């Protein structure tokens, strides 16, 4: 039986997976150990840890109610990392996937869990050198977490379009706004949570999977959104790591507003119908971003993703006010109105320079040095 830890509803935390680059040709480099050794020489109190391959590092914020405080913490973590990276001549960058790294060059981090993942999944483990943002939202109990997970599934395409930052993969333009999610799809336990309607039902499902020896813990599910019982949260795992330091905060604010509406309206309309179109809508967002078309199985209607997002943002205004997130709501609206995305910016640089090395150089310069509020556009 999985115990769901209680947490303060609507509190937030984000995790960001970052690229570690050499500053010669801006390819990924095996730098996580060296960087950790460097920054851990003095106690700092931040959550910074290695990821599955050694060209990655993951940072996590503390639990926040206020997204502005979250931004302050992210800026402090960035400063610590950038100081360490200077010493070692490493570059750090956001972005969902490195544009030209070769998956076979990547090295699995020597940690028991990662070695097990590598043994089980073979080359998929190295191909999992992709970079995402995870958003944790505090839930009062397991039932609320199950409800919120289903509720957020409807909005997954919005998160994809807002965060898309991996148009290039293995040296080519994929024509997708985010190529990262294709790597996640390859895992057998990816996709979405099954149609359980309570924490008890979820536990029944989990125990069955455990008895079949398919899973040992919640970490074995690579779902787009999943309950995280040990933290008492729901975790959204669909976003690419954005290129700017402040975009993760905007995405977290959006999740917080949606969660507030879910809890305030005591939403519990769990049904199979929305999942008929879940994968299709997700694909539309990955491929076309703001230009994607979403299908609503209930109303048999189609609507542009941009329009759907703008409507949702309009409906969230009272929640933004209640959460003191009006500026974040306005920034999200601007991005949606102008179809601003990190992928578009990356493609522009590539068009101008013709060089993927230059693309990564610019994205690294941006993540490391751009002041908050500048954005990439």
């Amino acid at each position: 039986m999985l115990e769901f830890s209680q947490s303060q509803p609507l509190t937030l935390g984000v995790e960001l997976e970052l690229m570690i680059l050499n500053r010669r040709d801006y390819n990924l480099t095996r730098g996580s150990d060296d960087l950790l050794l460097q920054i851990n020489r003095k106690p700092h109190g931040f959550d910074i840890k290695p990821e599955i391959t050694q060209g990655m590092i993951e940072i996590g914020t503390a639990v926040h109610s206020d997204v502005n405080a979250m931004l302050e913490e992210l800026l402090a973590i960035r400063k610590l990392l950038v100081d360490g990276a200077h010493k070692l001549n490493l570059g750090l960058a956001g972005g969902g996937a490195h544009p030209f790294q070769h998956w076979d060059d990547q090295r699995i981090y020597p940690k028991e869990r990662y070695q097990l993942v590598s043994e089980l999944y073979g080359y998929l483990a190295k191909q999992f050198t992709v970079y995402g943002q995870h958003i944790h939202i505090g839930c009062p109990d397991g039932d609320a977490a199950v409800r919120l997970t289903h509720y957020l599934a409807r909005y997954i395409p919005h998160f994809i379009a807002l965060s898309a930052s991996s148009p290039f993969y293995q040296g080519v333009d994929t024509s997708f706004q985010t190529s990262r999610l294709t790597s996640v799809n390859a895992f057998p336990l990816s996709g979405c949570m099954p149609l359980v309607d309570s924490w008890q039902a979820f536990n029944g499902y989990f125990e069955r999977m455990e008895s079949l020896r398919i899973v040992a813990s919640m970490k074995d599910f690579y779902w787009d959104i999943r309950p995280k019982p040990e933290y008492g949260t729901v975790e959204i795992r669909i976003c690419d790591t954005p290129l700017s330091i402040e975009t993760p905060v905007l995405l977290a604010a959006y999740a917080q507003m949606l969660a507030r509406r879910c809890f305030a309206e005591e939403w519990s309309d769990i049904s199979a119908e929305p999942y008929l179109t879940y994968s299709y809508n997700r694909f539309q967002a990955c491929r076309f971003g703001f230009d994607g078309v979403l299908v609503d199985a209930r109303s048999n209607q189609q609507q542009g993703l941009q329009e759907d997002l703008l409507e949702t943002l309009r409906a969230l205004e009272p929640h933004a006010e209640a959460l003191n997130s009006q500026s974040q709501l306005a920034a999200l609206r601007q991005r949606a109105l102008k179809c601003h995305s990190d992928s578009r910016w990356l493609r522009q640089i590539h068009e101008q320079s013709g060089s993927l090395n230059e693309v990564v150089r610019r994205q690294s310069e941006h993540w490391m040095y751009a002041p908050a509020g500048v954005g990439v556009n």
Partner: protein
Amino acid sequence: MTVPIWHELMLNPLAAFGILLALGVIGGQIAVRVARLPAITGYIVTGLIIGPYSLNLLNQQLLNEASIFVQLALGIALFEAGRRVDLRWLRVEKTLLATALLYCLLVFAALYALLNGSGFGAPASLMLAALGMATSPIVVLEIVRESRADGQVSERLLTATALSSVLAMIGFALALSYSHLSANHTVEEGILLPGWLILGSVALGLAAGLVTTLLNRWLGGHQREAQRVLLFGLIALVVGLADMLALLALLALLVAGMSTRTLRHGYTVSEPGILSLNHVFTVAFFVAAGAYLSPQALASHWQLALLCLLLRGGIGMLVWWLAARANGLSRKQGALLGLALSPLNSGSALLLGLGMVSLGTAATSFSAALMAALMINEIAAPFLTRLALRLAGETAGASHA
């Protein structure tokens, strides 16, 4: 038409180059598969066996004729080594610069004291000590490539290697100046020649770096293949020009590489990818380097050569071990970095001719001592560098440091 009989057959340079490559690859594979040694060791031993001092399958004349490939290989490696030196980083990370300088200085002082004490005389000792500072860029790059090493030890190793080569060439030119002056040669020979060697080579390197950057920028990243061919052409041009102008091609190419990394828009030369084309030349380089080695030189100087190499290796391990923490490394990584610096620059042999002119009777022992040190070093050092990188956990499949 008469058919030539066997003993009348003479290898032409192309056939010699073919033999160099084919036998080199076989030797390299034997080293890798049978002895689990780096392929480089196999190339060098192959050269040693077929060279003029052993089987004489490749005689001195053929070696000279194949030298264009050797120089190209060295040129490409030096350009690549130069590109590994990030001057902006060295401005921030002064510890690395200071450690590399201290290491070179101590090696120079220790080797000079040992050689002078062994009766070589000041001019020859100064020249040998200067050459002893340099770690071989081509060996280090090839080991890093072959073992797919990546990490802080590899990064600092490559920077220190390039810096040591620059210092060694400058040191050699100054020692040459001293040698000429102390041999009562003309002032022109004593000052102008070394000055020309250093300043002229640096100027040629800077000009080449500037032209490379500008042309790469003009071509643009969409013309990757054209950029690659251009780079190859410019490197060949620098090698040729340095030869025509009697300059140090080694120094010019290092400077060219460094400047393309540092100049504005240098990032347009960000991924030359030229090293992958270079492998053919690299094999030829090492087989030829082996062929130049003279086992006979060992007979008279093996003890001194061994002592020099041990001293050099010991200083390297000690200095980098002491400076490890300040360099952001663990103590173990520091000592291993010092060990990885073992390969002597076999390109130093190309400078032999310059030194011999001014040394008179000391020239023979100067040459023999250098060859003896190179002989031991070229066989042992690639293995030591690979071992160090493996123990540091930086090679593919290595255990963690």
